[in-house]
């Protein structure tokens, strides 16, 4: 079936670090939490769901859930989650989830990481608009804080 351009996001990034190092930053729930900004309760296990509190300043009231699908060492890490799950009063469990995939490829200089998120076509449009309104502004300012933290702990 043809997918519209609104169904999928794909990002590619060259990392000057070995696939082993990148894999650890993705697959170790504590390391993942450090750069992503979430304090996860348990490790990533294929077929299991883990959850945790967002640690971004201003977003600490939110809990996020990740349903892990595949963990193929140094190659593929994938999970499903609820995008735009930004209102703590709303139960998102009945809504469709998007699929996030991290694919690693060894390169001369380190690792090529390809990240994709797909399945947006199934998400109710009204939810997208609402999430957009709730998120816009604020977010950029929060990012500045994270950046400052990361460079301090370098």
């Amino acid at each position: 079936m043809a997918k519209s351009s609104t169904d999928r996001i794909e990002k590619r990034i060259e990392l000057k670090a070995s696939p082993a190092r990148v894999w650890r930053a993705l697959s170790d729930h504590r390391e993942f939490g450090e750069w992503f900004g979430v304090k996860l309760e348990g490790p990533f296990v294929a077929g299991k769901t883990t959850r945790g509190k967002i640690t971004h300043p201003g977003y600490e009231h939110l809990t996020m859930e990740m349903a892990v699908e595949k963990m193929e060492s140094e190659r593929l890490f994938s999970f499903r989650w609820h995008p735009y799950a930004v209102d703590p009063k709303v139960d998102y469990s009945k809504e469709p989830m998007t699929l996030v995939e991290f694919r690693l490829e060894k390169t001369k200089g380190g690792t090529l990481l390809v990240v994709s998120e797909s399945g947006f076509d199934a998400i109710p449009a009204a939810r997208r608009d609402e999430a957009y309104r709730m998120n816009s502004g604020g977010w950029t300012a929060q990012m500045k804080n994270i950046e400052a933290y990361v460079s301090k702990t370098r």
Partner: protein
Amino acid sequence: MRRSTPVFAALGDETRLTLVMKLSGGSRCSIAHLTEGLTVTRQAITKHLRVLQGAGLVRGVRRGREKLFELEPKRLGEAQRALDHISKKWDEALARLKSFVEK
């Protein structure tokens, strides 16, 4: 009402995507015109147009006895904007991952 219809699901079909593309030039088209060059029946096109209308992507305008269809560009723009926003969040997260693994 129509705000809760998944716009994105409405676009997840090849024929509907083709219809949106045909209308994207900004012109108003009749069903007969829209069916031209497609291997699907007029009835099928009518059904697809109804889905697109339900999602607020297309609207019907009556001109005399004829019904014409045109694109509702605002709705498509909103969908794209929401995705751009998520896309930006990924860029930011990946920039943090980069400095995390390269330190």
